[in-house]
């Protein structure tokens, strides 16, 4: 069995042998499969529209249409990962959950890996759960994967999204809200304050429900997990990981200084000069903490752990892996790279550069990552030449993490010739080792 597992894992690895190391190759996306999935879900969506409540049907339709457009875009943008082996693995974990929870057998669960690097998972409607690679690669074992899935499945079967839509439509159409809107419309003065008060009340209510939904999904998720053969502490361990997930792990300034300093194009301090002050793009803005807390969609992770801990305190020790540890490990590894590739493919060069430089600290000289840095620099050069760079990069902003802002400012500080100089000389510095790697050659020749 172990030999079989190991062989499966090897087949899964999107890495090819190169000299003494393995080089990542992005999995080819199956466009036919994506199209067929869109068609399937579109039929489902159309059927769903016919079954919407007749009262306020136009309102419901508009919201469901907006939700469908989001679902469609996930497939159109090729965000859904179509690797058969990865899908088999995810299906196997879901199947393990369903097997132990007969109540789920009546539900059509459609779980996919999303190529997004954002550490998140979500239920997006039509029975579709997206498990972002950015989250998967941060998890430590399969029981944590299982908890994430149990949590999202709970959102689905508890109809949280649908209930929120119903609540919103009925609230906005309620006599109380309509009377208030009529009163505000007739008023000559003080409309803004009255509208603010009304919308704040509705928003606070909605966010409170959203936090309640999370707590419910946590509880039900643990209940589902407890029925499986997975370790129940996967739940609290996952929440602990989520609690730390936004913390910067790399000193980006040091990373740029070290990684992009070449003899042919030495590092210059002006590359990382930070624009300070309120208008410099990285201001620390004062927050209205009570208001922000009221608007949070998720309860605090530590509070969530405290709520779940008693539920799993007496759970029997079970297994961290039921499907395949080797495949789990190989996927985690591959996903670190797939998010680099997807960020670039989805025209977010700065995300791709951030992931690449971060990963290079873990895997120095990695052929794919080195080539990717050159590819991004070449891409920025070409985009700036055609005055479209603004479509491919993000700008420094007060809401971005500090380290990412360092990288964003770095890109802002570069002149056209810097992109060419840094890219070319960075690749040149690695040419001896990587010359026979075809991807490298393509970028080096640019």
């Amino acid at each position, binding site marked *: 069995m172990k030999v079989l597992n190991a062989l499966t894992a090897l087949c899964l690895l999107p890495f090819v042998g190169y000299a003494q190391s393995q080089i990542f190759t992005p999995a080819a996306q199956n466009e036919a499969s994506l199209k067929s999935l869109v068609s399937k879900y579109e039929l489902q969506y159309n059927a769903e529209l016919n079954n919407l409540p007749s009262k306020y049907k136009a309102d419901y339709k508009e919201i469901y249409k907006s939700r469908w457009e989001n679902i469609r875009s996930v497939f159109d943008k090729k965000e859904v990962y179509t690797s058969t082996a990865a899908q088999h693995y995810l299906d196997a974990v879901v199947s393990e959950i369903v097997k132990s929870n007969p109540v789920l057998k009546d539900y059509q669960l459609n779980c996919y890996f999303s190529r997004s690097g954002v550490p998140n998972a979500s239920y997006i409607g039509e029975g579709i759960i997206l498990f972002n690679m950015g989250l998967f690669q941060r998890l430590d074992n399969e029981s944590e994967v299982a908890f994430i899935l149990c949590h999202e499945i709970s959102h689905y079967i508890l109809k949280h999204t649908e209930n929120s839509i119903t609540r919103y439509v009925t609230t906005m159409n309620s006599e109380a809200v309509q009377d208030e809107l009529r009163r505000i419309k007739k008023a000559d003065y003080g409309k803004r304050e009255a509208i603010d008060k009304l919308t704040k009340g509705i928003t606070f209510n909605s966010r409170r429900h959203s936090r309640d939904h999370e707590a419910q999904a946590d509880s039900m998720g643990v209940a589902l997990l407890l029925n499986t053969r997975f370790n129940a502490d996967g739940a609290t361990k996952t929440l602990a990981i989520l609690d730390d997930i936004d913390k910067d792990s790399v000193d980006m300034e040091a990373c740029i200084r070290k990684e992009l300093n070449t003899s042919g194009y030495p590092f210059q301090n002006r590359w990382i000069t930070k624009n300070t002050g309120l208008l410099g793009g990285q201001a620390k803005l004062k927050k209205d903490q009570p208001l922000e807390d009221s608007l949070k969609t998720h309860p605090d992770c530590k509070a969530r752990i405290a709520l779940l801990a008693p539920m799993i305190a007496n759970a029997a020790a079970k297994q961290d892996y039921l499907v395949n540890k080797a495949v789990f490990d190989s996927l985690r590894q591959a996903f670190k790279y797939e998010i680099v590739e997807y960020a670039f493919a989805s025209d977010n060069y700065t995300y791709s550069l951030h992931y690449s430089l971060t990963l290079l600290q873990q895997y120095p000289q990695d052929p794919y990552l080195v080539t990717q840095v050159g590819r991004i620099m070449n891409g920025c050069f070409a985009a700036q*030449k055609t*005055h479209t760079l603004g479509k491919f990069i993000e700008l420094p902003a007060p809401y971005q993490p500090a380290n990412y802002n360092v990288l964003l400012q770095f890109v802002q500080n570069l002149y056209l010739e810097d992109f060419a100089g840094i890219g070319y000389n960075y690749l040149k510095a690695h040419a001896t080792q990587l010359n026979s790697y075809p991807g490298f050659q393509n970028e080096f020749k640019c």
Partner: protein
Amino acid sequence: MIRQLFTVALFVCMFVTNTEGQSKLTVDKVYAAYLQNSGVIIEQGQIKGYFYLYQSDKIDRRTNEYTLQIVDENLNKVQDIKFEDTKKLSLLEAAYNGSSLAFLFKNEEEKMLQMKVYDLDGKLKFTYSRPYSKKTDGLMAQYETMHTDEGMNQSVFNLGDKGYISVLPLRDGRDQTYEVDMYSSEKKKQWTYIPEGDDQKFAMAEYLGATDSLVILEVIRKNRRMSGSGTAHLVGINPMTKKKVFDIDDEKDKWTFVPSSVLPVAGTGKFIAMGNYFDKDANIAKDASKGLAIYEIDNSGNILNKTYNSWAVDIAKHLPMNTKGKIDNIGYLYIHKMIATANGKFFIVGEGYKKQASAGGIALTALGAMAGGVQNQGVTKVVVTDLVVMEFDGAYKIKDAKIYDKTNNTVVGGPMSDYISQHTLAMYIKMVGSFDYQFTTGNPEENNFVICYSDFVKSSDYKGETFNSIRYNGTKFSQDKIELKSKASRMKVLPAKSGSVLVIEYFKKDKKLEFRLEKLG
């Protein structure tokens, strides 16, 4: 244009989105905020952000609630300032000094000009008010008619971290003068500099720049008892002592120097002034200048060095021109910008303009005459021609010059162009914003700057407007062009933070307005 487009954008953004059905009341059917006006926030001649003042509510018959939204140089909203004020309020200009923001408001109800200084958390620190009257009509007219490069301010400027100044034109009967107001951002303190003396009855001042201890103005003075165009002065005022430090008029000099721009030289206690120079008895508004003069002046007003580059000899070595400063096929040069780079180089950007026979005007005048009419349709027109970039050495002598071709652009036609002098025409072209030169951006302290101008191209590949840039990277110049006809229904390129432009594309079909910052070439 920036205001109009931003108006659309914000108007759209301000609606609270919702997904209500048509028959019911929705938030956007009940409430909308209206953009009053918007503009750039300037610090030391660079765009640092943007402001949007919108009327967010009506409080009573005479009072509105306003929201002043502050957007940073990367288009992030960083502050919303709410306040109540008269419904007859407009925001004229804004400036930033790193530790505070200043806004010059016009309160029509109380007939007051109000300078409000806010801290970076959006808290009002000080309000400075002064009445406005017929005396300050010139300022209001300036806002309605004047065109400035780079979307820059006309009246309000920051004085490092000390505060802000405004330079106001004043008219009293037939007298015309000016005043300089200083507003502290550290403590509530304001003072006004008013020029004194008989020779100040006709004095027009233009802010040229500031050093750590000086506000430098170009002042054109004319004593009504005298005829002629008046005299040009470079006036330095110490904003702390409220005293005039110098008033350079070149009376004893061989030439009359008319400064048009100054550049402080950081850390040296001196600045450079550049402008045209004329014969001593020349009429500076009508007569041809002799060439370009560059003065090095210390902060006490001592002229350390004077360098003259004559059209006839010095500049003619690099450009084909006559003794009156007219360049073949280009005409006269209007000087737009002076740029000093860290590597000791010095550049001047000019643009050609000339009178040209107007075929249409001649034909119409001739036809009119044949019909017995006496009306002159204008037999000449004024065209704006090519862009010229001149390079000067460390001694401020011209070293090189290059002409950048662009399509001639007719800006003035009719009888006006027949009778008005070349220089007056240039002032008029500048005032109405008809030069193709747009702005210069970048970091000269990093030996990097970009000169931007518009053009109209007629070629087999493309016919339409273009946004052009000439970039200096410390060693050489390179050119770039953005074609303004794109998939978008409308495209506009506007000045933005240093080294970048703001590209705005409007897609009519999708009713979508897209903004993005683009780094220049």
